[in-house]
């Protein structure tokens, strides 16, 4: 593995540790700031409920009851190669595009990192439950921003038989 990859792997670890510390602290204590973690066009999927864009993500977070999160596992890698340089644009799922930003010298060092987290969360009014969460974060200027955030309780998913047949 070349030196460049090693730097990116190391970077991804550091980013994941700092990111997850901040993310769950804000989720539990400063919910109103959560949307700042996301790209303007970020995607959040909360137990299969998907929303797109900072405003909708803010609304989703503000409607959730108060939480207490306990993080138990974090893992992270960089996305290497050409796909390292990605950026999601558009404000509608139908127009989501990934543009290889290496074409743009200004953001030529764009880095993209995958983070997988697991833990235990208690929402007010609900018994505590294990959860798993998957992030894709990308460097926008000097800030890491969430491209995609998938959260799931570890639970029996109750979906109608017709949609079960889908997968």
């Amino acid at each position: 593995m070349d030196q460049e990859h090693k730097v990116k792997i190391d970077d991804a670890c550091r980013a994941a540790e700092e990111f997850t510390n901040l993310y769950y602290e804000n989720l539990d204590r400063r919910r109103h700031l959560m949307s700042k973690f996301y790209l303007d066009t970020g995607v959040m999927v909360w137990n299969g409920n998907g929303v797109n864009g900072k405003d909708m993500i803010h609304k989703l977070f503000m409607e959730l009851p108060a939480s207490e999160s306990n993080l138990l596992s974090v893992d992270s890698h960089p996305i290497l190669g050409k796909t390292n340089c990605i950026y999601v644009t558009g404000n509608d799922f139908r127009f989501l595009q990934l543009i290889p930003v290496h074409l743009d010298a200004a953001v030529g060092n764009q880095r993209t990192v995958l983070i997988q987290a697991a833990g235990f969360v208690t929402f007010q009014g609900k018994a505590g439950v294990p959860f798993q969460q998957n992030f894709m974060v990308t460097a926008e200027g000097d800030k890491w921003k969430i491209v995609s955030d998938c959260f799931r309780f570890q639970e029996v998913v109750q979906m109608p038989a017709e949609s079960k047949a889908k997968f």
Partner: protein
Amino acid sequence: ITFDVSDETSIPPSKGSFLCLPEGQPIVRQFLEQYYSLYDAENRQPLLDAYHQNALFSLSTAYHAGENSATSPRLFDYLPESRNLRKVNGYERRNKLLKSGKLAIVTSLSQLPSSQHDPLSFAVDLPIFTPQLIYISVSGLFKETKTAKQPVRAFNRVFVLVPAGSGFCIVNEQFFVTNPTPEQEKAAFNVNPVVPVQVEPPVPSAVPVPVALG
């Protein structure tokens, strides 16, 4: 008289699947069917074709909060390979646990316990689906077919796919394994639906009604 400060909070009901683009569904479904039929097979070597030459893979595992190997089924088959950054410190060790390249990945996957996945337990989210990159998050249950007592495990797995030839290949994969909740364990491999589903009484008809299969 009260103040008009809305304090309405609630937990939205969970949905089994989120697709950013409905058109992505057949591709994701096909990918998962193919991947898991190979992963659950006796020999996982054919998975070599699923990975990019420079793909990255890592496994992580953790007991649930307040649990350990004395209180719940042991995760010993996963712990030595677990790249949980909260437990594994030091660049060298972290780097060693990140499998790079298709051969290293499939070798690592081949050493994990033999499995059978329960497709009915799957929750599949597709937050990114573009011609250049597909991001799939899958959660669900499998059982270890060759381990004593065939324990059920819960997993969460992320696949990042990019186009390759006429299809796709995996460039990144993250695999988290843990023990199921008691409810999950009860529901695993249960042929009866967990949720009572309203079934329309069959309509007597000479002509079979076509059934849409997703």
